[in-house]
């Protein structure tokens, strides 16, 4: 129980600290030092500009949410506080592949270019498919309205079903 208490303290202590800067709409450090982008956050898109996204969670549940153009799918998961176990552990810094998502063929083709760095991380994703992407690298646009993103089975799920 001591550990639980310690972890509670830890999480409480951290409340004021974390800053989340993965969203495409917010500037990053890189932008700060080049001065190419200003610090002001752009005007909020109109409600009608929102893009509808359907996530199929690990348990098969469909979650429908809306996101703004320019946001990544990881941003949407964080902003909408979706309960997807272990999703986006490295906060969109391309150090893991926990925001792995699977798309339908036609949607996958519309998602834009995959960088080498994303490919390398995808290679390490569990349950990789030909239409897999990392959620932190897929940015919403109006043309993606209604897209379906499937969250793949996790390692733990696979183990449980084997055990069953």
């Amino acid at each position, binding site marked *: 129980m001591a550990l639980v208490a310690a972890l509670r303290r830890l999480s409480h202590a*951290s409340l004021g600290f974390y800053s989340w800067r993965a969203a495409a709409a917010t500037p990053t450090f890189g932008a700060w030092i*080049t001065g190419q982008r200003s*610090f002001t956050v752009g005007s909020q898109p109109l409600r009608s500009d929102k893009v509808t996204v359907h996530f199929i969670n690990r348990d098969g549940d469909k979650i429908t949410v809306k996101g703004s153009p320019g946001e990544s799918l990881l941003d949407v998961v964080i902003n909408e506080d979706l309960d997807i176990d272990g999703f986006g552990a490295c906060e969109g810094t*391309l150090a893991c592949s926990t925001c792995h998502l699977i798309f339908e063929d036609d949607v996958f083709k519309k998602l834009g270019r995959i960088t080498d760095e994303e490919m*390398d991380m995808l290679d*390490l994703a569990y349950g990789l498919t030909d239409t897999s992407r990392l959620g932190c690298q897929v940015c919403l646009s109006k043309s993606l309205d209604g897209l379906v993103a499937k969250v793949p089975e996790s390692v733990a799920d696979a183990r449980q079903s084997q055990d069953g």
Partner: protein
Amino acid sequence: MSVMNKLTTTCWTNFYGDRRNKQMLFVLRCLHKSATSGTFGVAREEPLPERLITSTDATKKRLPKTLAEMPGPGTISNLFEFFWRDGFSRIHEIQIEHSKMYGKIFKSRFGPQLVVSVADRDLVAEVLRAEGVAPQRANMESWHEYRDMRRRSTGLISAEGEDWLRMRSVLRQLIMRPRDVAVFSDDVSEVVDDLIKRIVCLRSQSSDGTTICNINDLFFKYAMEGIAAILYECRLGCLSQKIPQETEDYIDALHLMFSSFKTTMYAGAIPKWLRPVFPKPWEEFCDSWDGLFRFSCVHVDKRLKQIESQLQRGEKVTGGLLTYMLVAKEMSVEEIYANVTEMLLAGVDTTSFTLSWASYLLARHPDVQQQIHAEVMRVLGSEKVATAEDVQHLPFIRGLVKETLRLFPVLPGNGRITQDDMVLGGYFIPKGTQLALCHYSTSLDDENFPSSLEFRPDRWIRKHSSDRLDNFGSIPFGYGIRSCIGKRIAELEMHLALIRIIQKFHVCVSPLTTDVKAKTHGLLCPGAPINLQFIDREI
């Protein structure tokens, strides 16, 4: 400091406030999960928890085996191997030998320390994929002791738990994303200019006018200059004819750190009460840390003073990584000292060894060098200075670095202390067990990489956009939340240096150098000096 306090009233850190709560819920949830999924108390002698019992079918339950049943070398023979036969310098080879003898998962004892070695690609993946929010690498007690004694902060290498997670969350947002690191492209390019000048100067001093002896010496200075340009926002002069005294002192402190690496490994194992009898390892350890911290403090303080006077004059403060850290104040100045010190320590010889091996491999394989040269000529020509953006069009250069790190992973093994009970490879591994992930043996396993001993950068080139390379066998920078934070910076430094070297020179092995083998000295390094010839390319 009053000026710095004024800075807190500026809104640098507050732009992201609206996202904080959501992020916190996310972190809280992770921590909660980590806490609730754990089994508390060490379960070595207890019956296995029901949830960990796996079965092949519904009727027949198969219990995981215990650590006692795990094969491995005997305690005495292991001590003999490491302390008498200097196994520490052959630790990478012993990894392979032991995995052949005992299988993909085996246990060894180093005095009181039990280590479970994992020498299988899929098992390594299993360990890293099961990680919680704040994975622990190894026991860093001696590092903590030094920091407590000198009232210093921990940095990303030595910190654990909450402290680690907080600093990692700040730093990964600054230097982990490829697009954030690409802004350092010009700074690194300037250091590459000096590297090339230095190569031309050094070779002209040799008797044949082409040879540079012990190339690692030069790459060490390049890597140090490169990382300092990014971390300290200043040039140290490592690549100039006359190196400034304070830089020389720092290089000495670094060398002392590395040369005492082995003794510090013992220093951790030697009980404190034995220190009066064997004081030297601990004293050297402290001396070298003193030197490293002193150097960082000088450079951080210098920048801090500049910022203060700029603000006093009412000037706008602009700058790079250090400026941002000092202005944003997401970490205390003491934490900034510790982090730049540890990042510099981690980012110099790792990069220089890899560059040394890469040039050695190019020199030993002229046909491969020719192919890569052709790619560079096609994309850039002989004069255009490459930027970070150009690298994506040079898959052979990326393949060269990956293949070099596969053959010579600078960290031949990595550690993890299990944070939960787990079943791995059919064995029950209790929480708190030290694991050794054997990257050297998985990298050189024919099952993972056919003809694994051959140098073939093209094995990393994708044939088409959906071509997948199952590469958990070679993860030189690690994977996941505790992977190398300097990965993208190191890649940038190596890519830009290698591109320019290939544009300018034909690299050949000097007759002075024959087959160079690797040895482990904390890191995997060349076992003998690598002497190379740099011959101008015909334009």
